[in-house]
């Protein structure tokens, strides 16, 4: 496969996963801001996805409408949902001959939908959750269409590597966003609603209660979002998927390239798998997440260097 095509399709997978992840966390944050948390702060979310300086964030914090505008519609914010979808479609266009017509049309429809001016009106004057739900549905439609129609070749492999790598990054970021709301006071803040919203943001609330039967402990929550391999948004699950798809590339790789990427994926997986959750010192957890994040970026860089011809 052409290096340019592999890179473009990898990023298509990443952008679409990010779109879905961001929408879910925006949705949950909005609900929690309306629901029970008094003095809810959007700051951590705006700092992660808003492409804004600290001072600018302060001005936005009061109004959900301004926040939606910044995170969903703003053309100037490179991380906005609008720009994610536009870039996804632009990527899809550049490799149209490597995705199915169905996947292309699905992304093209999404692009036309997000440009519809009615959407902004609906969010302003009607129910914002319905609008976000509708946008999330497009993501689900894309995921299903991809799964139903794409041939299981190299293109599909790169798409999934991008998707699951991005999912690992997203989960890391969402944990950081939610825990920074309680200043990483893991033990002292056992009762805080942020733990619940962390699970909601990662589609994990129902699963958590099925596993732990109402026994709510921060340690269990972290165990689930970091290490549970039956939970599709945990970091370890995502990395296992990256590893699984990557192994399919063995025969389509130069041996040296394969070894280098295999090493770094394995190392990152181990750092998650064999980390004892109850042994974090105060303040250590945030550092651990930051290191994990940088390992995930190293995996991406290693693909760029060894497979996409970018040194």
């Amino acid at each position, binding site marked *: 496969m052409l290096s340019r095509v592999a890179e473009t399709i990898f990023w298509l997978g990443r952008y679409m996963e990010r779109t879905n992840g961001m929408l879910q966390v925006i949705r949950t944050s909005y609900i929690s801001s309306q629901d029970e948390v008094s003095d809810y702060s959007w700051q951590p979310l705006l700092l992660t996805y808003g492409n804004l300086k600290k001072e600018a964030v302060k001005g936005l914090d009061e109004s959900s409408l301004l926040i939606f505008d910044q995170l969903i519609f703003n053309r100037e914010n490179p991380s906005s949902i609008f720009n994610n979808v536009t870039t996804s479609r632009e990527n899809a266009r550049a490799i149209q*001959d490597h995705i199915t017509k169905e996947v292309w*049309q699905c992304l*093209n429809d999404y692009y*036309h939908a997000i440009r519809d001016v009615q959407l902004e009106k609906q969010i302003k004057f009607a129910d914002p959750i319905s609008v976000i739900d509708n946008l999330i549905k497009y993501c689900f439609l894309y995921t299903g269409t991809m799964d139903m129609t794409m041939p299981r070749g190299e293109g599909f492999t790169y798409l999934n590597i991008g998707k699951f790598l991005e999912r690992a990054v997203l989960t890391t970021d969402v944990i950081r966003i939610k825990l920074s709301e309680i200043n990483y006071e893991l033990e002292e803040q056992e009762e805080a609603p942020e733990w619940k919203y962390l699970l909601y943001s990662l589609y994990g609330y129902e699963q958590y209660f099925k596993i732990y039967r109402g026994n709510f402990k921060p340690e269990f929550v972290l165990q689930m979002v970091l290490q549970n391999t039956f939970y599709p948004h945990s970091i370890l699950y995502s990395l296992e998927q990256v590893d699984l798809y990557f192994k399919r*590339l063995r025969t*389509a790789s130069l041996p040296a390239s394969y070894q280098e990427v295999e090493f770094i994926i394995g190392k990152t997986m181990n750092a998650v798998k064999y980390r004892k959750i109850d042994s974090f010192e105060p303040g250590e957890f945030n550092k651990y997440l930051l290191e994990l994040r940088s390992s995930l970026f190293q995996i991406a860089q290693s693909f760029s260097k060894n497979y996409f011809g970018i040194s």
Partner: protein
Amino acid sequence: MSAYSILEAYLEQPNVWDEMFSAEGIRPPYKNFVSAIENLPPVEMTHKDDLAKKLFMSQGITFTVYNSGEGIEKIFPFDIIPRIIRNEEWKLIEAGIKQRLKVLNVFLKDIYHEQFILKDAIVPADLIFSCPAFLREMMNVNVPFDIYTHIAGVDLIRDSDGSFYVLEDNLRTPSGVSYMLENRSITYRIFPDLLPKNNVLSVKDYPDLLFKNLINIGRQNTHDPTVVLLSPGIYNSAYFEHSTLARLMGIELVEGRDLVVDNHKVYMKTTKGLQKVDVIYRRVDDEFIDPLVFRPDSMLGVPGLYWAYRKGNVAIVNAMGNGVADDKAIYSYVPDMIRYYLNEEPILKNVPTYQLANQEEREFVFANMERMVIKKTNESGGYGMLIGSAATQKEMDTFKEDILKDPRSFIGQPIISLSSTPCYINGFLQPRRVDLRPFALYGPDGIDIVPGGLTRVALKEGSLVVNSSQGGGSKDTWVLA
């Protein structure tokens, strides 16, 4: 008062051949179609028109216009009423184009080798050597199977007497074939059952025929050739066509930056290292194709490609330097070429063309400018053109000045009226002018032309310019069995 009829606004136009109407009424090939739609309520027709637009948009059959930062998606305007061609007419067109292509191909080989046609003074030598599309770099290059014009889109028009004329032979990188394919697939969505009921010949073989030719050309060097389509990239207005063709043929769509030349061989950069490329169907113009030989500022080409080609390590489709055969000034010699090379009479007529480098012809054109079309010999897309009947005195004077500065770069032709065909506009059928571009494929096994083509239509009332860059649209083109 009679009931609403979709035909009531269809006014007769003097001195214009209408594809649907004759003095005796509706022409036979259109009868079936008209009877199927004439009693539809206007809201149904408008619904079909909207559906067609929606389908183009949702399938992403669009091009992006970039201004003020954000891209705007546009569709190439499509008129839902098909243009219908009788089988006998098609046979004539097919034979005429085959004859022409055979000759133009021989002409290219001759011009880039022995140049017998210049020595015998059939075509004036200075006309060739002053043509900017004539590439000295192509002298004595042997192209695979002696084929230069693998893909041609010959533009035909019909004059008021009903006969077809060739207006242009597009032999460089003609585009529009994806619209021939897409227009057809939209037509069967909006007019269920009408295609089979009318015995319309299918156009769907085009990608298969093209792919077969590309593979066969590559077989000269290797048993299992790698074929790629070289595109300028997603910002090109024909990008949709490039990706459609690549997908339909199952070949790799590459950009210049994906290719690299090493030791006069062409490779593409893949995730597993370099992979050799044997055939390039390029949609990048000659001047951009190799910055080491042609325009040095080109970012679209591949450094070293020319020498790889010259050494026969890669086949390029279409060949470089074809522009010398479709130059608008050299065009007027094609009938003579047919007589010279084949000893046959041309099947399709040429539009009379005046060489403005010739003083007598120039004076004649200047004296009759309001009945002439003046064209630049090396421009296309409806640019660099003056239609005398629609031009102001000032525009004519400016053109005259330009012509006197560089007469070789202009030709004059009498205004041909162009036939009209019904279009669905504002709830009624209205006549608009059309041309026809069938696509011919020249491979080692001969020439194939899929029955159909792109009918381009000037959507502005009374306009004679069908180019998409000048507000033209297109129609599905039916050739009946």
